């Protein structure tokens, strides 16, 4: 038995909220943030004054690209909160780093409730700068330093290029095909068509996918997620404080985390797996549940290939078998053995940057999935990240 030794066993999700999604949104980044946070807080039956912790990923970013326009302090002020614990997670296990920190803060007794939010306004910013790459501004060469020096001088300017290296190696080693990979994008769009807050809801067929332009072989346009403006908030509470709240508590049955060198030019292995494998190993070592118990999965899809690699890292598929598993889409659709990315994921619902996956997991476990509700969903796996890796196993009673 794994018992209650792990910090996450002390913590539940008690609220969740999401702002409108826009491309662009007419609302300010702070307004989107407040919308998402207030929805999460009121869903739990609480007020901002009840919340004694707040954190975000990654924290306010100085860039003008809309990657992280709102920090914890601004959100705290705007919400009229008086938290005892405040944080941000610039480095760490990608998007879920902030959730993991919040779990630690609660389990250690620093606070009882932590609001975790993530705001992006990349659509608004894109309209201003017209830039979609690792270069700050197109056509203004200055010297590149740090991690980007291993790609940008070779005109591999987009993250698409790096994940294409993984996709090509995976295709080559396991004989995976574009038709198989395309099932991820087609499934995402089918799910998004049932999600009123998704950015792309028009049906997409595998033929449409195959006809779409190649960005960086073997990745096509529809293998890449899409920038949006929006905010998501997740409310975490100590399990003792969760009992009397409005919604049934969602237990964090297990969590896992790992870091690798992808963002720094250091690659482990042969480009067919991610260090995320270690996050999956940790997650399953914290629980008596097994991958067979997972009813629905929200798996990171910043690029479709990441979903295949994460399915294997989470042991939901064996190494090299994820592409065949998703082929045709039946197994990952509603009614399939593992409904996948039921919001439409980042490919079709929009790049809420990890937080859309956890939010959707909550909706599913509260039975609030509407047309896309997976019947009887009690256990949901969540996985986030391409550079750093975090995973959650969520369950209801």
């Amino acid at each position, binding site marked *: 038995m794994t018992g209650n030794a792990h910090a996450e066993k002390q913590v539940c999700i008690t609220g969740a909220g999401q702002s409108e999604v826009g491309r662009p949104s007419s609302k300010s980044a702070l307004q989107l943030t407040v919308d998402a946070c207030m929805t999460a807080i009121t869903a739990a039956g609480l007020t901002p004054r009840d919340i004694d912790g707040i954190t975000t990923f990654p924290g306010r970013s100085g860039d003008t690209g809309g990657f992280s326009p709102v920090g914890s302090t601004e959100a705290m002020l705007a919400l009229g909160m008086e938290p005892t614990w405040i944080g941000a997670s610039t480095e760490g296990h990608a998007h879920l780093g902030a959730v993991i920190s919040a779990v630690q803060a609660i389990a250690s007794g620093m606070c009882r409730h932590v609001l975790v939010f993530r705001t992006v306004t990349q659509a608004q910013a894109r309209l201003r700068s017209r830039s*979609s*790459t690792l*270069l700050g501004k*197109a*056509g203004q*060469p*200055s*010297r*590149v*330093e740090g991690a980007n*020096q*291993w*790609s*940008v*001088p*070779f*005109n*591999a*300017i*987009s993250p*698409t*290029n790096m994940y*294409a*290296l*993984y*996709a*090509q*190696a995976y295709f*080559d080693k396991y004989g995976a095909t574009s038709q198989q990979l395309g099932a991820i994008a087609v499934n995402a769009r089918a799910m998004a068509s049932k999600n009123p807050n998704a950015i792309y809801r028009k049906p997409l067929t595998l033929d449409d996918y195959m006809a779409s*332009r*190649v*960005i*960086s*072989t*073997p*990745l096509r346009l529809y293998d890449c997620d899409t920038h949006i403006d929006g905010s998501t908030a997740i409310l975490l509470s100590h399990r003792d404080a969760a009992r009397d709240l409005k919604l049934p508590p969602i237990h964090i049955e297990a969590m896992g985390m790992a870091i690798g060198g992808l963002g*720094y*030019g*250091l*690659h*482990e*292995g*042969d*480009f067919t797996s991610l260090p995320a494998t270690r996050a999956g190993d940790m997650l399953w070592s914290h629980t008596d549940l097994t991958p067979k118990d997972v009813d629905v999965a929200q798996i990171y899809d910043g690029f479709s290939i990441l979903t295949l690699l994460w399915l294997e890292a989470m042991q939901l598929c064996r190494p090299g078998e994820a592409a065949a598993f998703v082929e045709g889409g039946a197994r990952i659709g509603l009614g399939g053995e593992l409904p996948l990315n039921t919001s439409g994921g980042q490919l079709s619902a929009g790049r809420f940057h990890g937080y859309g996956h956890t939010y959707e997991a909550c909706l599913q476990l509260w039975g609030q999935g509407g047309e896309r509700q997976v019947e009887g969903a009690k256990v949901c796996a969540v996985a986030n990240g391409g550079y750093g890796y975090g995973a959650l196993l969520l369950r209801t009673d």
Partner: protein
Amino acid sequence: MPEASTEARPEPKRQLPLLEPETAFFWTGGANGQLLIQQCAACGTYQHPPLPRCRACHSADVAPVAVSGRGRIATYTVNREAWLPGLKVPFVYAAVELEEQSQLYVFANILGLVEAVRIGLAVTVTFEQHEDVWLPMFEIHDDR
């Protein structure tokens, strides 16, 4: 004045690496025709990108050494998107596994015919000078 044509747009300049204390040797080794990779004198491990110490044994006794410049294409992608106005596509971006050590990767463009590129092909380094930087590039190795 003749009408501006998009075809005639000049190729954008490559954004070059900043020459920093830890990495400058890698970007300038091509001036002498050498691919320089950091090696640990204590345990013999090569590492790239360069770091202040050896990741394997933590020795500070790390220094650039010239390697053969030969390797194999570990993985690659054919970039078809013109990320910048005038960027010439398609081009190949690849991870080259150097023959000196398993999973010792250098990232670069593969020159020559895009259609010829495959995982596993043997490649040899060549250099392209841009200002004070010698970008390593790789050509498919011809044994004949």
